[in-house]
Structures are given as C-alpha cells and as structure tokens.
C-alpha cells in the first residue's frame, strides 16, 4: 500500500476519475445482444477491415487512417505504410487492393531503393496471382534493374516468362540470376523446368511439322493422281490464271497451282456428306458421286464410287431389288435408265453409256468435277418427263 505522500503525487483528476467508478454506473456498455457486432467495430478487435471507412460508424479507424496517410510524414514513411497496407490486403488475397496500395507507395517516389524494390516485387507477386503476367514481368524487371541480386525479383521474372511460354527468356533470367547467386535453389529448379518445357515445345513443333508434311504429301499425291488422269476440277472462285507463279510456266503449272489452291474448296464437298475423293492402296481413286432425279426432285449419294466400276454396277444395286420409295410409278429400272452429265459452260447435256466406267466419263474433255463431287442426271427412257426435260437443250453423245 502506497504512502499518502505518493498518492498525492498522482495526476490530478485521476483519483476523482477512479472514484467515480465506485458511484456511477458504467455508460455505453456492450449490450448482450449485439456485443459481437460491437466488438468488431473496435479497431483492436476487428477481424476484418470494412470496405469503406465511414467516419461516423468507425471514428477510430478513420482517425488511424488519417494518421497513416498524413501528408506531413516523409515519403519514406508513407511508402512504408502503404507497403504494409498492401501486404495486409495480400494476405487476405485481395490482390486488386494490394496492387493499389503498392502503386500508391511507388508513386511516393521515395528515395529508399530497398523499399521500392520490395514494393515492386510485391506488386509483381500480386499481379502474378491475378494472372497479369505481363504486368508482373514488368514489375519484376523494374525491381531487377534497381537491385540485380534481389532473389525474389529474379525468381518472379523467371516464373512469369514460363507462364508466358517464353522459355528461352526464362532460362536467361535464371542464368543472369545464378551469376550473382550461384547457389539459389529456386533459380536452379526454375531453369531445369524451363529447359524441359522448351525442349518439349521444340519436339511438339517438330511433330506438327512432320504431320503437316505428311498430310501435304498425301494431298499432293492425290492432286497429282487426278491431274495424271486428265480429270478437270471446277473451281468457281479462282479461274486458272496463266503466269500466276513464275514467268515461264506452262498452263499445266498454273493449273496445278490453281488446283492446289482449290484443294480446300474444290475437293471437299460442301454437301452435308463431308466425303472426299481418296486413293486406295492400289492407287485407284474413289469418288463421292451424286445421282440426281429431277423428275422427282430426289438424289442419291454414293460416298465411294471406284473409278474402275461402271455405272451399271451401281444402278443395278440402287434399283435392282426394291424401287426407291419416291418411284411411285415403279419405272426406274436399271435397264431403262438414261444417264447424262451437264456441261454448264456450254449448256449441253452429254449422254453417258451406263456400261462405261466412272473414270472414262470423268476423263471426257467437257467433264468438270464440281465441288469435288461428280454428279449425273438420271432419266427414264421413253418417259414424257425425259422428253420434256430434254426439249430445247443441246444434247451430245460421248
């Protein structure tokens, strides 16, 4: 127990204040209902910071904020506080806010370079976690420029390069870093990882190139086979231009260039079928072929008509047993069908002997394969429709 002399030394008003507790009731106590809420409002016991600091609701916080961001403090102090603020946001994974704080800190342009390096590397980290690799890389580079041996900046720089799939750059970052910090394990690991990725990417490129070459080779062989047979492909967009490639080229060259170009739209049929002419192992071509029945507005599609087969073979199968459902008069029999192909340019119909092979017809000088799919018109001999259809049209035999 202190002596009365000491008691007299204590602050004026303190004793009185203390004595009040004995008589007065405590005001502004936490109520039983909302004490948790109340607790959360006291800066010391806050679990999370409020988004907005309303001075009315959180007077103490507003006060603290004012202290922290007081313009009278030195740029270094302000920057440091902003760094701490950023770090706090970072811990909560609120990367956007962290970036704002770090940026504000950097904008103070304080003279503490170590602090600036940390602000930059931390901002790089925040950007990294947001997936902003370019920004993160820029920040890491800026930090590295100020302090070339700062491990975190080097590591972050290499990581960003890896994420951006620029593995050569990543290796450069690591090598530069390892010059100054030869035993930095993270850099060694990143280097090994980047190197591995790089070599895998190179392999993938080689693989794609090999595949493309193979496909190209197959396509070239196919086009060559078609050309060798003297079959002409019709393309609507680009006509065969002379001299489109080099000075002295003959028509064949120009045509093959045109053919190669049209190979995309000329061979693949725009029809739903998606079928395309192909070469079999013996080198024979198989074509997708359309049979048109204008009388009934119908058509038949043969997905792979071997060039050596004759039309009669297919007609026998198509019309041999059961007549098609649309043939209500049952007059489409293999023996009494007439086949024609149309020369659009000359507006002429050429009659085809069903006993001819597909190849023979395709090689006709006026036959042009349209959309990669030869098509033929089928009519019944002696029918009134045939008479009607052929009226006014130019007709030729093969």
């Amino acid at each position, binding site marked *: 127990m202190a002596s009365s002399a000491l008691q007299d030394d204590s602050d004026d008003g303190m004793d009185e204040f203390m004595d009040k507790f004995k008589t007065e009731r405590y005001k502004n106590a936490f109520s039983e209902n909302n004490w948790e809420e109340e607790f959360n409002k006291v800066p010391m016991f806050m679990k999370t910071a409020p988004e907005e600091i309303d001075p009315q609701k959180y007077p103490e916080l507003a006060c603290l904020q004012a202290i922290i961001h007081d313009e009278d403090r030195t740029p270094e102090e302000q920057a440091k506080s902003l760094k701490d603020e950023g770090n706090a946001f970072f811990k909560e994974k609120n990367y956007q806010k962290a970036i704002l704080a770090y940026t504000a800190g950097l904008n103070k342009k304080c003279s503490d370079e170590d602090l600036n390096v940390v602000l930059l590397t931390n901002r790089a980290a925040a950007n990294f976690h947001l997936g902003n690799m370019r920004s993160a890389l820029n920040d890491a580079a800026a930090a590295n420029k100020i302090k070339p041996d700062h491990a975190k900046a080097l590591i972050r720089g290499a990581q960003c390069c890896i994420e951006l799939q620029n593995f050569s750059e990543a290796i450069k970052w690591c090598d530069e870093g390892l010059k100054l910090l030869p035993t930095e394990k993270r850099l*060694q690991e990143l*280097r090994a990882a980047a190197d591995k990725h790089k070599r895998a990417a190179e392999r993938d490129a080689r693989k794609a190139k090999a595949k493309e070459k193979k496909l190209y080779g197959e396509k070239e062989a196919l086009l060559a086979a078609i050309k060798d047979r003297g079959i002409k492909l019709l393309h609507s967009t680009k006509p065969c231009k002379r001299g489109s490639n080099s000075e002295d080229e003959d028509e064949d060259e120009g045509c093959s260039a045109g053919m190669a170009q049209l190979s995309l739209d000329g061979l693949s049929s725009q029809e739903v079928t998606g079928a395309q002419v192909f070469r079999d192992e013996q080198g024979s071509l198989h074509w997708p072929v359309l049979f048109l029945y204008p009388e009934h507005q119908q058509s038949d599609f043969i997905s792979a008509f071997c060039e050596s087969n004759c039309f009669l073979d297919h007609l026998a199968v198509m019309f041999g047993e059961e007549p098609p459902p649309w043939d209500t008069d049952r007059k489409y029999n293999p023996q009494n069908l007439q086949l024609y192909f149309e020369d659009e340019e000359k507006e002429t119909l050429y009659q085809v002997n069903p006993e001819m092979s597909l190849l023979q017809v395709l090689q006709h000088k006026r036959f042009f394969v349209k959309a990669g799919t030869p098509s033929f018109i089928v009519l019944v001999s002696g029918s009134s429709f045939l008479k009607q259809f052929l009226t006014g049209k130019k007709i030729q035999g093969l």
Partner: protein
Amino acid sequence: MLSDSEAAELLSFLTPSTRPDVKGQATEYLLGLSGHRCLSFFLSFFVPFFRDGCRFLRSKPDLLAALFALTSDPSIAVVKDSYHIFINLSADETLHQVLLTDVKILPVLLKSLMDPEYLFSDQICTILSNMTRHEKTCKSVFKELQEDIGLAKLVEIFCTEGYNKKAKLHYLGPLLSNLTQLPEARNYILDKDRCVVQRLLPFTQYEASAVRRGGVIGTLRNCCFDYVHHEWLLSDAVDILPFLLLPLAGPEELSEEENEGLPVDLQYLPEDKKREEDPDIRKMLLETLLLLTATKAGRQVLKEKNVYPVIRELHRWEKDVHVAAACEKLVQVLIGDEPEQGMENLMEVEIPEDVEQKLQEADIKEQHQLEEERRKQEEEERKSSDAERTDREQESGLIK
C-alpha cells in the same frame, strides 16, 4: 628490351660459330632495328625446329620474362609474334614449370582473358590449353586459377555467346577438358548446388567449332568417370542423356514404339538431321555413354530411354572402324544380360590378375587389328585418288 649481355648470350646461342667481331656487329645491328620485332621473328622461326632451343630457354627465365613482356608491347605485330612464340613454347612440357613459377605468366594471361575487348584471347586460350595437358602442371594451373579468377568465371566466359567480339574462345573447351582430369575440377563442374555442367550441355552440338564441341564432350566424358554422380547426371536436374545422343542420332525413321520411348529431344528429328562428322568426337560420345552404363541404375535408364535403337542405326551408318567397335561395346551392354549379383557396378568389380592380363592382351590385339583395317582403308583411298591423279595427268599430257 634486352640488356646487352642478354642479347649477346642469345646471339651466341643462335650463331655459335660466328666470329666475335661479326657477332658484335650483328648485335649492334639487331638492337638497332626496331629490335623486338626481329627478335621475335628469330625465335618464332627458331624454337619449333630446335628442341635445343627450348632446352636452352628453360634455364634462362629472365630471357623468357623479357620475351613475355613483349606481349604487352604497344606494337600489335610484336604482340602477335610473341603470342605465337609462347604458343609454341607452351607446347613443350619441359618449359611449363619455369613459365608458371618463374615467368608467372598465368595472372597476366587470365587478366587479359577477362577483358572482353582483348584481341589475343584466342592465343591465351591455346596457351592455357597446352599448359594443362599433363597432370603435373595442370594441377598447378588449377590451383593458381582458383586463387585467381576461378573456374566459375572461365565457364561463364566460355558459355557466354559473344563475350569477346574479337576472339572466339573455342579453345576454352579443350582447356576445360584438360582441367577435368583433376578430381578437384570435376567436383566443381559437378557441383549439385550450382548450375555449371548444365550450361555446358548445349555445346555438344555447337556446329561452328569442332574444337569447342570436342572440348565440351571431353569434359563430360571425364566427369562421367566418377560414377557417384551418374544418377544425378541422368536425372532431370541435368538430363545429360539427350545431349550425348543427339549428335549420334540420324534422320532415319524409327518405329512408332521406338520413337515414343526416346527422350523428347530425339523425337521427330527432321529429314536433314546430320550426325557428328568428327569420328574422334563420335568415339568420345560413345565412351561417355559406356561409362554411364557402369551402374545398374544407369543401365536401366539407358535401356528405358531407348538408347539401343539410336546406336543400332549409328552402327549401320558408321564407316570408321574404331567408332564401330565402340558402338558394339555399348550395344553389348545395352542388350546383354544383367551381370550377376555382386558385379552390378562394373567399375567396382574385382578382376583377378590373370584375367586382367588376358583382357589387356585381347585389347592390344584388337587395337592392332583395328589399326590394320584402318591402314588398309587409307591405302585404298590413296590408291583410288592416285589413280585419279594419274588419269588426270595423262589427260593433260603431264606424266611424272
């Protein structure tokens, strides 16, 4: 540069039987000329052709020092000739000790080497490479090197493309290879806590210089003598295998199955892939691979990574008898049975003396046979080219 007495001494050696008065005049004349240049000229002409010259110089460290000082001469022509002399001098093992200890060339050379603008760095590299060929001096050089700029810096300079715009620095390759005959140097290159050997690996395919390539591969081969490092070397941390195989792989297509098992770097090689053209380097690569099969773990990795098909195709293509023999040795291990228990580490197997003797004899015999074959090969080639020449000569009317 040289004192009168030194010049006289040198002259007396160069022209032992000349009359004294003539010698006197000659000395005057010599010194009167922009002396250094003709001195260098004398010596550069002199030293390679007379071993006596080297023996003489060995006992004259002051002369050597004076000569070495010429490498700092303001005249570029003098410096060039001086370096030329020292390259020749450094080729003589008997001079190494005096050059290192008395003339103290190393610190000066290393300092110049560090300078990215130095014009004669290539010459320095050649000298250093010469000086490290034999173990004894190599040890001294390494010791001094570590106290000076350090092996780390050498590797860094070597691996930095365009470090010196005026010099290629390819001869740092053989230098490294020589240094790694010492375990201390190997341990440095194979330091797990650093990234040293990894930086050397890409150079196994450096097209522009066989010297650099050979140097690096020699280094790797030496490093593989210590089998304790094999597991680490074959792991992802270093991944040495693809770099050893790529120079040996050709454009031949392998089956899909074989392709899939290969290391990534060897898959889908383009049609114009060329193999390493120097047979000695090919042999070194095969020797390195053979070293890696010493341990069971190593053999396993090489088998799993489909090394066999690559060597198989190499063997089909290979024309050099020595290299083909090395292929066969490697293939035997790759497709042979695993050794019995207790013998899994081929480097630690105890070979009984009589067996050892027989093996040595067999080795010598094999060497002789290979030499015979190679000589025959060369004979035939010479005959056919001779025949060509005679044909041509006949055609042009010239007959010897």
